[in-house]
């Protein structure tokens, strides 16, 4: 089967499952190319959340009535679905957070405060999203830890030339598994092995990775992995932190409150076991149910097929846009589709990204201009902002062609 250039997925059929993709933007067919910011949601996710509220809503844990039992069951079965999806050894290794940002903060604040002292070294890369930078700056201000940075090559890959020296003596490597700007996928296994050999643990920011590639935490070998539901067809308001069981056991709680304790006295408290230890307050149960439905949707497609489709579409975009626009198009990222995901940052015809996206908007095409919460990387690339188009299972070559035509129109509009 081949539909609009995709042999891996039936995109036309998939699009039918996403109500929002039948809407228009500025009177034009909506061409949604901003999945790196957030994905659209299939009907099955929306229905699962409605169904939960209509049939099973109650607060979870500790109540003795059937409805609360059903709510607890919904939450825990969602946790098990997430665990299976990423190859976790146990559902207890899945911590539900507000989003990946909170997951990354949990690692920096809970693990970091317990394990890092003045002078300890944390290694980051220049590809990182601010969510994997600012929490470490905050800890540095509080603890006097030292940050070291893995540099980036001009094509937006990590530069591993001095990796061993950078990792020497480090306590943790906290690294993106796929850049939200250049789309570059670092050689994760090599980096994890090098970090472990240097005595450091590894925390991965898998926000752009988990939705798009088959991911098995046991194979990756990392110690913490963070990702968000809303970038992988699920709702906003819930994220995931996976951690190795022994590491989670040894890490003190993050937020304090109800649900995360075994006992509280006037003198202090005893935390609950994982995962409840890290889930203070009423969890986002409907969102967990929605995330599980999103994972079921992805499982039905198969993550190998999802990756194959995106690799095809990326190859098509890189080829067709470069052929048409030549020197007018500068791509900030690797040119080999096998080394990258479906996130394309570019400069075009000296038109500022903000202006460019405004013109694309008038053609129904949604892309994102800006620094993409990666200002250290922007400085390396020597730009203040880029335009970024990103795709997913519901995009096809027609969408890329519409983007292409809109870019040509933008060039005409600004007469450059």
């Amino acid at each position: 089967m081949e539909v609009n250039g995709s042999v891996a997925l039936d995109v036309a059929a998939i699009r039918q499952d996403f109500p929002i993709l039948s809407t228009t933007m500025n009177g034009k067919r909506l061409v949604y190319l901003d999945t790196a910011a957030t994905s659209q949601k299939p009907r099955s996710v929306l229905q699962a959340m409605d169904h939960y509220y209509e049939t099973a809503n109650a607060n979870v844990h500790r109540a003795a009535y059937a409805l609360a039992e059903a709510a607890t069951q919904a939450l825990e079965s969602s946790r098990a679905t997430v665990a299976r999806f990423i190859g976790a050894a146990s559902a207890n290794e899945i911590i539900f957070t507000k989003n990946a940002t909170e997951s990354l903060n949990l690692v920096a604040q809970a693990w970091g405060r317990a394990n890092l002292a003045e002078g300890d070294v944390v290694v980051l890369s220049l590809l990182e999203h601010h969510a994997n930078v600012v929490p470490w700056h905050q800890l540095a201000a509080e603890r006097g830890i030292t940050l070291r940075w893995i540099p980036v090559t001009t094509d937006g890959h990590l530069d591993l030339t001095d990796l061993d020296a950078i990792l020497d003596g480090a306590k943790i490597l906290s690294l993106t598994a796929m850049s939200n700007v250049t789309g570059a996928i670092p050689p994760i296994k090599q980096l994890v092995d090098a970090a472990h050999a240097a005595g450091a643990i590894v925390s991965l920011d898998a926000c752009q990775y988990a939705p798009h590639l088959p991911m098995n935490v046991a194979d990756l070998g990392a110690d913490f992995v963070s990702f968000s539901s809303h970038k992988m067809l699920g709702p906003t308001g819930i994220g995931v932190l996976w951690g190795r069981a022994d590491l989670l056991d040894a890490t003190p709680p993050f937020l304090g409150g109800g649900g995360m304790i075994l006992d509280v006295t006037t003198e202090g408290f005893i935390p609950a076991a994982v995962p409840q230890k890290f889930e203070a307050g009423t969890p986002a149960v409907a969102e967990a149910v929605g995330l599980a439905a999103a994972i079921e949707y992805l499982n039905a497609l198969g993550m190998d097929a999802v990756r194959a489709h995106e690799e095809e579409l990326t190859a098509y975009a890189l080829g067709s846009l470069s052929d048409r626009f030549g020197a007018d198009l500068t791509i900030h990222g690797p040119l080999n589709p096998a080394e990258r995901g479906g996130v394309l940052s570019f400069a075009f015809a000296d038109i500022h990204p903000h202006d460019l996206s405004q013109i694309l908007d008038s053609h129904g095409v949604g892309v994102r201009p800006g620094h993409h919460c990666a200002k250290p990387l922007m400085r390396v690339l020597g730009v203040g902002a880029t335009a970024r188009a990103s795709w997913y299972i519901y995009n096809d070559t027609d969408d890329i062609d519409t983007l292409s035509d809109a870019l040509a129109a933008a060039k005409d509009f600004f007469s450059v």
Partner: protein
Amino acid sequence: MSGLEDLYREIILDHYRSPRNRGELPVPPAHRTDGFNPLCGDEIVVYLELDDPTAGDNAVVKDLRIGGQGCSISQSSASMMSAAVMGKSVGEIRDLTRSFKAMMSIHEGELEGTDIDDAAPGSDLPLGDLEALRGVVKFPVRIKCATLSWNTLAQNLEELATS
């Protein structure tokens, strides 16, 4: 594309392609202020030299230069602002700023359901070329682009007044 043509008026594109008063001034006697739009990374640098910084509202702009980088709206707005305030007194600039911001906030005012006729004193000043930016209010996300240079200039004047 009528909305787009409201936004990208020819005079705006002209200021974007040929920005007025672009460059730097020696500091001192000029005072430098950097302004950022954290949302899109746009940056405006205002170098301002007053004839007599101790003269308060009666001090007059002796020279002004604009640096930085950003989209056509932020850069053209800065260019038009530089032309509009050259030779003006601090008091006149304050009135002009109020007029410009009143023009920019019309859309926000409507969104919040407030009366759009309650503009601050000075908001009826003729804006000249700056009127071309009126189309920006239809694109709320771009209002911050258009006001970046004005906010940076206001900050510059405030820093001068308090130094």
